[in-house]
């Protein structure tokens, strides 16, 4: 349910998108929004539902890093 973690778009395929999360894990997702490589997105249950402003995404990732949030 936590849709606040940004993921970065790595590759755009014909019917899916490859994204990478804050710990470098990659996932193949469907999307309902238009995307470009390098965009930050939020997803839920396998679907990208929103793009996130780069500044906000980087702020969130910095907070996670400072807090040792990632495994």
């Amino acid at each position, binding site marked *: 349910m*936590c849709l606040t973690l940004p993921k970065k778009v790595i590759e755009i395929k014909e019917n899916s998108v490859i994204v990478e999360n804050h710990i470098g894990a990659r996932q193949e997702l469907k999307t309902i929004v238009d995307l470009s490589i390098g965009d930050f997105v939020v997803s839920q249950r396998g679907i990208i539902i929103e793009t996130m402003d780069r500044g906000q995404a980087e702020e969130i990732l910095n907070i996670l890093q400072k807090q040792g949030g990632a495994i």
Partner: protein
Amino acid sequence: MIDKKVITPAGLELLLKIMQTCPATPLNGGEHAKKHLQKLCKKGGNIFGCELRAVVDKELLCRCEGEMDVYSHLLENTQKNFVDEQEIMEYFGGNVHAEKILENAQRDGLHPSYSLKVVYGHLLVPVIINDSEEKTAVDSNGTTIEHLLTINGDKTLYAQGDIVLMHYGFIIGMISGAKMDILQAINQKSFLYNDAVGVIKEKMDFATMHYYPRSLKMAGK
């Protein structure tokens, strides 16, 4: 039968405040739920379970399954024919909600101790305002809470000593001492809440949580 259960006006009002502070609802963090729950609140009186469940499907490109889970749980897991404030507090302040949050946090790859802070942040908890200017509070364990926010448009002047409800680092309104006791008892029955309190120890600073930038936006800052 669950769609014929009703949600009381007080229950709906509390649910609206909680959903307004949840950055996890899709399409601009809670805006969708806010809009439709507000409409139901304005209608006045009890609303049926089917009306609540319909909120999730309205004008959405992608249904928020998490939001649907919440509404379904509220309607399916009460023995009563209505969902009131007590049911809402039981759900958002208790272990069922905490377990879902922990599961999601771990799936998202968050560190176990940080995940417990995330659990605490998501739970509905009563706190007492400590400094209204600096928006700090203290919870029943003596933990200081920093960088609290208020819902966009909330003009209430919270004063030192006020007992308020906290969800996701937002103050979502005042409650009586009696309700504080009820919610504290609900919190304390949740083993994950107790684990989280053990991790947080002295201070919970919401500005250090990864959802804070999104919460700031939702608070209109």
